[in-house]
């Protein structure tokens, strides 16, 4: 009622200004409020985690960075992230070494090589792989993958054992090692890498490819000269997304890995641990202080993930300028 009266009286002087209706103001308030709320929630989480983590680290009787064991619930508490950081990074690196070439290969096959009739079912299958819950991967890994990798382990031990990396201290111990975890993680991150890369390959300008073909390039040369340079930053983003999942994977690792506070170069030995696996294993029976300690380890994982993402963004930003495509 009042609105209609003001509208009728005021229009002439306000006609110059931007018309703001109540709906605009409400929407502005709502969206601004949501934005602020997000920041407040993030800040609250960050402060809470940091306070608890600092409390735990300041009462640690070991060195938080270099201690191997994780005994936060005993008195005095002694815990450190050395084994966890090593295991997390090593298993993720193994996963990347395996998954990036295969993932890019699958994506190239789907986007450039496969006949259309085969390409879409294949893409669909890869999508399905992403929909499997990680606990199912874990069970499959523990029940199927571990016994069946024993042969490969023994072969590696026999022929590549001299490198140290593939040395298996007790050849009859089961294959519940960081190496196996890396293979399992590779399978889990494959769909992410494949899907993102495929989308990037699709966006390669047809003109570039046709130009290369016109110059007499073979299909492989087209991919090498036109597709891959254009897609390089996309492949890096895809790998980083995958790496993020590999770093944080919990249940599958907890089921497959034979965790122990040992830091060893022998990747086939059943030993080691990862951040997420350790949290899953210790959280249930942890005391209040033990939980704080686990939160501290979670923060470290958070920082590692942040660094990895930051590095990826840097690489992408630098590549953009001379990617050969339309920068």
């Amino acid at each position, binding site marked *: 009622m009042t609105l209609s009266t003001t509208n009728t009286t005021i229009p002439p002087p306000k006609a110059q200004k931007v018309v703001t209706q109540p709906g605009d103001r409400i929407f502005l308030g709502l969206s601004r409020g949501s934005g602020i709320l997000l920041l407040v929630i993030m800040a609250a989480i960050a402060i809470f985690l940091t306070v608890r983590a600092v409390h735990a680290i300041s009462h640690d009787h070991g060195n938080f960075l270099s201690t191997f064991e994780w005994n936060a619930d005993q008195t005095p508490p002694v815990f450190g992230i050395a084994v966890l950081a090593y295991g997390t990074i090593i298993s993720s690196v193994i996963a990347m070494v395996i998954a990036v070439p295969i993932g890019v290969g699958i994506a190239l096959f789907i986007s450039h090589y496969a006949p259309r009739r085969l390409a879409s079912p294949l893409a669909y299958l890869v999508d399905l792989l992403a929909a499997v819950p990680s606990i199912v991967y874990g069970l499959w890994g523990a*029940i199927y993958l571990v016994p069946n990798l024993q042969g490969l382990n023994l072969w590696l031990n026999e022929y590549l054992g001299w490198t140290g990396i593939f040395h298996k201290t007790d050849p009859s*111990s089961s294959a519940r090692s960081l190496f196996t975890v890396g293979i399992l993680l590779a399978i889990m991150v494959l769909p992410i890498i494949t899907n993102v890369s495929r989308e990037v390959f699709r966006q390669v300008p047809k003109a570039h490819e046709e130009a290369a073909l016109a110059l007499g390039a073979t299909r492989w040369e087209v991919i090498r000269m036109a597709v891959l340079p254009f897609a390089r930053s996309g492949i890096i983003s895809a790998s980083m997304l995958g790496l993020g999942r590999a770093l944080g994977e919990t249940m599958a690792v907890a089921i497959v890995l034979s965790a122990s506070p040992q830091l060893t170069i022998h990747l086939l030995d059943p030993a080691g641990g990862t951040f997420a696996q350790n949290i899953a294993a210790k959280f*249930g029976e942890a005391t209040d202080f033990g939980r704080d300690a686990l939160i501290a380890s979670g923060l470290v994982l958070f920082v590692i993930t942040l660094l990895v993402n930051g590095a990826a963004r840097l690489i992408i930003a630098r590549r953009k300028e001379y990617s050969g495509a339309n920068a």
Partner: protein
Amino acid sequence: MKFQRKSRLRALAFGAAAISGALVLTACGSDNNAGTSSSGGSSNTAAAGNITCAGKQANLLASGSTAQANAMQVWVKNYMQACPNTQINYKPTGSGAGQTEFLQGSTAFAGSDSALKPDQIAQSKQVCPGGGQAIDLPMVGGAIAVGYNLPGVSNLVLDAPTLAKIFNAQITTWNDPAIKKLNPGVTLPSTSIQAFHRSDSSGTTDNFTAYLGGAAPSAWSYPHDKAFKGKGGQSAAGSSGVAAQVKQTPGAIGYFELSYATADNLPTVKINTGASQAVEASSATASKAIATAKRVGTGNDLALKFDYATNVEGAYPITLVTYEIVCDKGNKPATLGATKSFLTYIASDAGQQNLSSMGYAPLPAEIATEVRQQINSLS
């Protein structure tokens, strides 16, 4: 496109309908169960024993030990069938969380694998007003079995020092002289021993390592802890994980609750305790070991301490007991009646009888009597 979207919506709607239909069906199912059992009143009391209900409406919240969760589930079901106006909700959150929640006053009682520490008892005076404090009532016993996977060997005998050395990677092959000596006439393979422990922290590890340290202090020098402290070996998550690994790895040995050995059909080690015969893990032999335990709780507290080096005939030494934690005085008036009534039932002969069939060990008569007296005098 439009058509596709429509059909997807339809599929979704169909799925939702199917799921809600299933929910309705299951709801009907449980209703039916309750209906039949309450109509056949006499058979119901026979199954659940002589349950004396608390009378007034009550809602009992409890949480804690996962080790006694299976027993609790059966007890709660039996009790709520007999006393429909009492709601009991036992959350198996782990002993540590259970103790914390009880000490914060948010639960009526807690289940726990370990007795309260002195500072926790001091802290409990706040939730047990009027001069009361939290007490430990032993309720559910159990044997920790040592399962193994040795093709061709079915009657393995070990003793505490040998077990300690196996789990500390000092004995690494099955034909080690120490094992041979305990098993005369058995042909042991020369394969290496794969010792499995828990990768997650657990009361089972705590009790198992307490046994190793108590019965073989020279071979096992680590303090008992929920985290495994020994050298070497491999680990798996949960008792089910350890049992699964032992089952699929030849040459493996691992520890877990007796029920997992029964479920997975794994042979278990007989323990040479110094008694005339090596003792096998079972409900009966575990109960016998609990009877040899010493009471260490003061006042109304009935906390027990095991004599792990016991050589009583037929007492299986790797045994644990889990407690219910309540206030001796100053329980909340709203839940006191129901708490007393429920605990009376689970400590009764009828309640304890349920335990053997689930792989737990019932309390020996003498301790059960003390527990019942304590429950009677709760206020």
